[in-house]
């Protein structure tokens, strides 16, 4: 794909600002980037302890299953909650520079993506070692994770622009993701829910997005074509929504800042 010079320059700025955000996030801390690994690891251990050891969820190799769902979930939820304030938290910068506002949104999500990829690479290593289909995992991990990333960037843009108009949005998103976490098969499998709500759990967009990640990394199998198509449709719809908002609204919401 040929990118225009302007877009290339803007993407370089996204990359740079994401780097600055990472620097600010970890500068001065004792283990620095190690927090990117430690945070999700502790979260995983807590859930594994509660659901794997105490409740004894009947899923084989439960730690990998949990990680394959929890890491994408944390990436999506944290990115979207942060996106809701990406523009409003930079009011001063927006009011004094002509920088396109979407750059801040993509930068914040890129910062989150970097942290997720560190943890994800460790999970990938574990999945490769414990699976009989290591080659397939390596071959399919990018096509499987790509919709999660595309969806998050697209939905993040939508949320960021709406966040300028509705200042309750970050709080609402917090509540939304708290509820959705339990309605999405992250700590359990969709086959374990009552038949009456199975359809909501199985076909909620988040479940479909990282269902393919779980199938690949935990199941060691290729996701079905239907599932892959569904994830790309969800991701591209979100991306189209985000790009449309960014193009049509541009910096006009500066009046609402």
């Amino acid at each position: 794909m040929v990118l225009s010079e302007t877009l290339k320059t803007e993407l370089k700025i996204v990359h740079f600002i994401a780097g600055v955000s990472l620097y600010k996030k970890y500068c001065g801390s004792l283990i620095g980037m190690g927090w990117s690994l430690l945070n999700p690891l502790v979260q995983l251990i807590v859930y594994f302890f509660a659901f794997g050891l105490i409740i004894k969820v009947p899923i084989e190799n439960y730690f990998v299953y949990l990680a394959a769902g929890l890491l994408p979930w944390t990436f999506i939820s944290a990115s979207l909650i942060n996106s809701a304030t990406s523009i409003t938290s930079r009011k001063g910068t927006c009011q004094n520079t002509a920088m396109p506002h979407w750059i801040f949104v993509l930068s914040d999500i890129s910062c989150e993506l970097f942290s997720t990829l560190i943890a994800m690479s460790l999970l990938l290593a574990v999945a490769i070692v414990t699976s009989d289909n290591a080659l397939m995992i390596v071959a399919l991990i990018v096509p499987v994770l790509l919709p999660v990333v595309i969806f998050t960037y697209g939905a993040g843009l939508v949320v960021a622009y709406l966040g300028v108009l509705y200042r309750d949005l970050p709080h609402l998103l917090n509540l939304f993701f708290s509820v959705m976490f339990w309605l999405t098969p992250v700590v359990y499998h969709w086959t374990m829910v009552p038949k009456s709500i199975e359809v909501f759990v199985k076909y909620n967009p988040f479940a479909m997005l990282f269902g393919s990640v779980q199938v690949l990394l935990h199941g060691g199998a290729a996701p079905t074509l239907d599932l892959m198509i569904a994830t790309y449709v969800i991701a591209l719809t979100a991306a189209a929504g985000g790009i449309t908002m960014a193009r049509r609204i541009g910096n006009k919401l500066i009046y609402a800042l």
Partner: protein
Amino acid sequence: MNQAATTDFRPAAPPGVADEQDGNGQDGNGQDGDDSVNNMAPTAFEQLMAQRDTEVHSSKASVSLDKVDVIFGQHVYRTVKGVMVGLLRGTPKETVTGRKVLDAIDLKVSPGDRLGIVGHNGSGKTTLLKVIAGILPPVHGGRNVVGTIAPVIAQGLGFEPDLPLRLNIKLGLAYSNRLAQHSRDIEDAILDFAELTEFADAQFQTLSSGMQARLTFATSLFQTPDILILDEVFATGDAHFVRKSQAAMMEHIERTPIVILVSHSAGLIREVCNRSILLDHGRMVEDGPTDKILDIYARRYG
């Protein structure tokens, strides 16, 4: 350029040529003479300026505003219906209440124009600059700008208080879409001009407000735009740095195809601008030679 008025805002004299001084060894304002004004420009800045010499007169830069309105206030975007309408139309036309800060501004600026914008407080001068700079999109009307544009508007370029100066310089360049221009040399030149080399790795928040203003000014200075937009930026830092900044900025102005300046200083406007406009409550009420506009402004607002 109008050279009739005697002010402090002269371009730096060539090296080896002393500034005019009065009999007490002071300059016209009674301040101590300072040779650094003559020798203040770092090599990077001189190179930057020299590069512009041949480009000014062949520039195709232009600014064109067509019936631009800017309205600050409540937009129906904040309602569900407003959001839906706004998303479909892609423009916040549905303003229900608000204050018209700019009202049907028509303006064309061409290469060679040094445009001064004068008006009372709240007349919309800075808002107009922000529209031209692309920071504020017009609510109604059209904006067409040809050429690269460098707004030196606020006292900050989005600097982060807890980041070191070097990283803040890079951030400032990124925010003004000049990341490609970044290099260690330009960082050094900016720090040198701001006289902050020894604080290069200190956090921005540890600088005094004067030092922060110097870094902001120096970062804004190191660019070669087609259109330079200045909003009361000459008075930053201590007296020595103010004079040094003024001299450097005047040199910059000389070599920029289009300059648009807002200032409450009639002397500065007279010195820099060959054309001025007068704003009154968001409306452009006069457009013409600077002397004429300043006379009208003085008569109306004392």
